[in-house]
């Protein structure tokens, strides 16, 4: 499911007309952020069932203690925060650009594979 979400995000971005005009930047941001959140849920279901119901902020805090490599926790937090910013209405800010989104989706792709339980 996670890879499907990311694939859909990339699809939205790269193919003009694959969704309603002008919606794709926000839509892709939502999909990428949910992919990252789903990856965390999956991790907790395997390692610490129940934590997936906590707030994302709590999950991110726990990750820095539980992850084998603390630097991954930092990366995940930074990627999630950045995507979240695009998923909220901020004064004066316009939707993210294609270049920004491409970078973020790449990051999430990488992080999702790092977080995959079987990879540990």
């Amino acid at each position: 499911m996670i890879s499907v979400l990311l694939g859909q995000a990339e699809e939205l971005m790269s193919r003009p007309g694959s969704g309603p005009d002008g919606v794709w930047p926000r839509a892709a941001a939502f999909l990428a952020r949910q992919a990252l959140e789903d990856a965390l849920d999956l991790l907790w279901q395997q390692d610490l069932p129940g934590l997936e119901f906590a707030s994302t902020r709590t999950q991110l805090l726990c990750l820095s203690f539980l992850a084998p490599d603390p630097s991954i926790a930092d990366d995940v937090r930074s990627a999630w925060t950045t995507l979240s910013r695009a998923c909220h209405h901020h004064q004066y800010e316009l939707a993210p650009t294609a270049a920004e989104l491409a970078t973020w989706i790449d990051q999430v792709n990488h992080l999702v594979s790092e977080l995959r339980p079987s990879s540990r």
Partner: protein
Amino acid sequence: MSVRDEVLGFLVERGTPTEVVDLVLAALSGKESLEETLAGESTPRRLEVVPDEGEEPSEEPSEQSVYLTGIEVSGFRGIGPPAKIEFAPGPGLTVVVGRNGSGKSSFSDGLETALTGDSYRWIGKAAEWKNGWRNLHQPQNARVAATFAVGGLKGPTTVERTWSDDAKTVNDSTEWAQHHGQKRTTLADLGWAAALTAHRPLLSYAELGIIASNPSSLFDALAGVLGLEEMNAAAEALRQARLDREALDKEAEKRLKDVILPQLKGSDDPRAIACVAALGRVWNLAQVERIVSAEVAPASPGLRTLIGLAIPPFTEVADTVAALRGSSELVRGMAGSDSSRARRLADLLEKAVAHHQHEGDGRCPVCGTGTLDAAWREQAMEQLNGLKDDAKTFDEVSALQSAALKAARSLSTPLSLPTEDEGIGLEALREAMAALRALPEEADEAATHLEATYPLLEQALGAVVSAAQERFSALEDAWRPLALSVASWLEVARKAQLANPTVIQLKAAEAQAKEAGAELRSRRFAPISQQAIELWKLLRLQSNVDLRSVELTGAGARRRVDLEVSVDGTDGAALGIVSQGEVNCLALSLFFPRATLPQSPFRFLLIDDPVQAMDPARVDGLARVFSKMAADRQLIVMTHDDRLPESLRRLGLPHIVKEVTRQPGSVVAVRETTDPVMQYFRDAWAVAKDENLMDGVASRVVPGLCRLGLEAACTERVRRDQISDGKSHAEVESSLDAASKLTELTALALFGDASAGGKVLPTLNGWGRSLGDAFRDVNEGAHKGFGGSLTGLVNEAQSLAERIRLR
């Protein structure tokens, strides 16, 4: 009033001399007419102008009205496949928003390039910058086109510019222009070129920056609208005419110094020396002309005397010789003749009578026997009379000989020589003269002497004369080219001398033309300056910088725009202390009036990103100014964030927003998004209904979009309420930034208190259960997706948003 009449009025009013006024007027009609007037061939037309007071120069409003209806771009800068942005013709404000790199500036650059063949972005940039005009993803089919609605013409007017695929530079393009239903022509045929420069309906952030960087280019940008080019051209024509004439003087002086004087000084001809004397500090050209035109005696007078030396011809000598010889023959033939005996006897008797007269009677002193007494005397006198008759023949012959001898003596000194020998040897001549002068007394000998020596003198004289002649011609030969050279210089010198009074008049005329130009400039600039000051008052808001006056001053390299500002009431502040945002506002204040003068045919004005480096308070001022301008102009403003649209929305100023987005591959799309709250819900609705989307996408995206709509509604409400309550922009901003979650934001919107989140859901439920549910579903679904009816969710969330923002 035309420039010409205005100048005439100004000059007459200040009492400028007629000749100077004529020169300025002639210069206004061009170089040729100035030269004609200077040559006295014509007098410029003058009107009876009564200098009037206070009348503003009326300027013809343009007959055309041009609105922008669209820009189409492909393969150019940030735009790959064809993209089009459309505008409604007519007054109004359109804001084009797009993140940096979205392609919005490619539209404005496209319009500028279509109209001018170049872009401000590239002017003065290095070649590698200029090369960036092609799109990276679609480097072929580069094309920019703009469509306009021109008043009085049916259908659009199109301007298109294309590049062949191997064109290297942006300037290497092909353009055409066409009014709908008419023949294709060129851009030049539209007749917009002058107005494009003078009124420039395109302003970019980069261009606004010149106010701080280059005072002379700002001067040019502003002075261009005043239509005073002919005034500058007139001053330049006067200056050139003066320089031409001063060059004559300089040329004459230089030639004199470099060529003529060295030539003259290298010659020992007295005329050359006289010329040098006449060409001292003050040139006596008349004297020089007399010398070279040979009115003065040429060369040395001594030489002329030598050449003029002459003696009687030898035939005369031969006559005298013959007379000498003839008389001598006669004298000899008379020897023993009665006549000669009678002469001798008569001489004797005369002497005896004279003796008797002294001595008285006495013995004859000759014979000693006879007696000389009265009787003898009487007899002797009688005898003497008879003897004299007998001696007549002899006396005549004697007289003949004396005359011949006298002639011979005269011929022996035929010549007097000058004291100066002028470098010609006279010794041989003197010797010959001395030899001739030694004439014997005796007639035969004298004849022989003459015959022998006269030809020697003739010979010696001939040698001297021809030597003198030779020397004379040598001198003349040397002088002639010198005289020619001086004569040709004289022409230049005379022209220069003639031009001198003209130079003085031209100087006066040039000064008058410049003063008239400055006066006209300040008269015509006054309304622009006034408007700029008014605009600045609207724009400045909380700025402590007050714009007092704007003036175009100086000329040539020192031309500049003087902005007199005061800070906190203190005058004379420099622009340096003004912030970048304020500098841009100042520049806008100046460029607006220029672009919106009635004589411009362009009813549209496109401004690219004026909001950069501006704080939110000033954006409100800008929004008001834009809205005011848009009352009778088509104003298009490009901006990279939501500050300006937010301000316009909050202040309730009518406008249209177009959003530009750019997908990978330089695919650029434009859509109208005037109301961001509604836009989010429209987007959410479109996603919910989109059947092309992959499964699961919509349920995960729609709640997020609805949440964005609720957030936007809350933000709008907060900003509107708090600013109308008198809170500063900065305070509102920080309270919005602090409310990061939807519940906090909604509490801030509904109760003015972000910490009152607990009251939110009960309040919403009080409005209606479905609204409270929608709030919860949106908040949770933004993370987890929503399993229920997406279209229902969008409808409920939208109603909630409308309720929150009280619309």
